[in-house]
């Protein structure tokens, strides 16, 4: 059972790494947000897999439901901010945000 958990953790770590790479290297705001989504997939996989391998799947599901609700709120707010940024700067380039004033 322990080895199964390590397999799931290895894949969750790869997902988190992929998301962090996107956050560090991409310039498009939507791409950056896709990176955050990939990280959140890794985290929810880690949560549910830990519950599954430790016989606590019900608590893990309850926590993962909370996580998904928060994720949806974050996505809605962040995409609204991205649309407003686009209207303000005319571009989705994250580097243009450094030139904002006031």
């Amino acid at each position: 059972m322990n080895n199964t958990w390590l397999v799931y953790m290895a894949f969750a770590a790869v997902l988190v790494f992929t998301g962090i790479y996107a956050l560090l290297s991409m310039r498009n705001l939507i791409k950056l947000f896709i990176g955050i989504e990939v990280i959140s997939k890794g985290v929810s996989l880690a949560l549910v897999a830990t519950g599954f391998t430790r016989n606590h799947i019900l608590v893990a599901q309850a926590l993962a439901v909370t996580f998904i609700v928060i994720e949806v709120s974050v996505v809605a707010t962040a995409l609204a901010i991205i649309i407003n940024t686009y209207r303000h700067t005319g571009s989705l380039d994250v580097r243009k945000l450094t030139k904002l004033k006031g």
Partner: protein
Amino acid sequence: MIIEIVLLCGLVIFSAAAIIFRDLLRAAICLAVASLLLGILFFRMKAPYIGAFEISVVAGLITVLFIVTIALTKTGGDVRESKTASWAFPAFFVVFLVLDILVMRGLIGKIPALGAAPEEGSFGDVLWKARTFDLVGQIGVIFAGVLAVLALFRKRGKDE
């Protein structure tokens, strides 16, 4: 376990494809497919509620939100990404994969298994009785999200 590993590999491949693709629409659809595979994986882990949530909310609702955003910001999608970043991704990915496998192999047998008693009751019991505070927090988060979106899309007053 073989089916799980195939699903996990598909999940990683589609997530990486969502990062690699330059076309935002393709990236969003790859993300939706990755969520679908994760949802199927949750069903295989005997977690049907969270599987249904993942498929309906993350693969459905969030993909729709992404596609609407991409449609609203259509002309701004041609941001030039750094070429070094896309070129270096496979190299970094392989290095991390090797490190990950080595670390996880090293951990085999070293993490003690906790003596956990099996859970009793249903998912509803656990969610309602043990995590009541979480549910209240979720309602607060949803309201905060709605208010944030309303504030960001409010109409401008006459004096602005």
